[in-house]
C-alpha cells in the first residue's frame, strides 16, 4: 500500500461532516460534538509528525476523535458525584415502575434498534460519499443533505443546472451500488 500523507488544509472540507456525525451520535449534543471535532483537528496537527502513513487520513482522524469522546465522558464523570449507579424511581404512578424490572427497556420493541441502525446507516452513507470524486460528493451533499436549491448549488459550484443534474445522477448511481454492497449485504 502506498504511504499516506497528511493534508491538513483539506481536513475541514473533507472530513468535518463525517467526524461530526460520528461525534454527535456518541455525545448527543451538537455543541460538544463541534468542540470535539475542532479538538481532533488541533490534536491531529500537533501530532502530525507521529503519523506513520500506514492508515488513511480519515481513519487516523477517527481514531483521535474516539479518544476525545472517551476523554469527554471521563471528564463529565469525574465532575459529577462519584456514584455511578443512579436509579431514578418513578413515584408518580401507582403501580408502573415500582419494580426495577419494569423500568428495563422492552425487549420486543424494535424502536431502539431502528435508532441505532439509522446512526450506522448515516455513517455507511458517509463512507460511500467519501469514495466519490470530489465534485460529485460536494454536489450530492449540498443538494441532498444540506437541502439547498438547485440555483444555490449551481452558484456554489459554478456550473449550469443540466450539468448539476448529470453530476448528481452519477453520484447517486455510485452511491446505490456502494450501499448495496456495504449496507444490505453485510
Amino acid at each position, binding site marked *: 500500500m502506498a504511504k499516506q500523507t497528511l493534508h491538513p488544509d483539506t481536513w475541514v472540507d473533507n472530513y468535518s461532516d463525517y467526524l461530526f*456525525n460520528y461525534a454527535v451520535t456518541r455525545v448527543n449534543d451538537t455543541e460538544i460534538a463541534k468542540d470535539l471535532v475542532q479538538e481532533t483537528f488541533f490534536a491531529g*496537527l500537533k501530532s502530525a509528525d507521529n503519523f506513520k502513513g500506514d492508515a488513511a487520513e480519515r481513519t487516523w482522524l477517527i481514531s483521535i476523535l474516539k479518544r476525545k469522546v472517551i476523554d469527554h465522558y471521563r471528564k463529565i464523570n469525574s465532575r459529577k458525584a462519584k456514584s455511578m449507579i443512579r436509579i431514578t424511581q418513578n413515584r408518580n404512578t401507582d403501580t408502573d415502575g415500582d419494580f426495577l424490572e419494569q423500568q428495563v427497556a422492552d425487549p420486543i420493541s424494535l424502536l431502539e434498534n431502528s435508532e441505532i441502525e439509522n446512526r450506522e*446507516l448515516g455513517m455507511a452513507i458517509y463512507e460511500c460519499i467519501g469514495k466519490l470524486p470530489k465534485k460529485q460528493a460536494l454536489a450530492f451533499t449540498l443538494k*441532498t443533505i444540506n437541502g439547498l436549491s438547485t440555483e444555490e448549488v449551481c452558484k456554489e459550484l459554478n456550473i449550469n443546472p443540466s450539468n448539476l443534474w448529470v453530476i448528481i*445522477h452519477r453520484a447517486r448511481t455510485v452511491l446505490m451500488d456502494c*450501499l448495496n454492497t456495504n449496507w444490505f449485504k453485510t
Partner: protein
Amino acid sequence: MSNCKEVEIICTKIQYREATITEKIRIRVHLLICHTCRTFSKKNHKLSLLCKDAHFRTLPLADKEKMKKNLGSMN
C-alpha cells in the same frame, strides 16, 4: 422516443421534486415499456428513503469557516 440516459436523469430530478410536468409524463410512458429504468427508478427512490432515514447532521458552513481559521492560525 426518450432514451434511457435522459430518463435516468429525470428520475433523479424527481427524487428532489424538481421535474417538470412534461418530464413526468415522459418518464411515466417510458417506465411502462422499459424494465431497466423501472428497476433504476425503484433503487433511486430507495436511496432517497435511506438518506431521509439516516438523519444526517452537518456542520453549518459558518462553523466550518471558523474551524479553518482556527486551524490556519495554528499552522
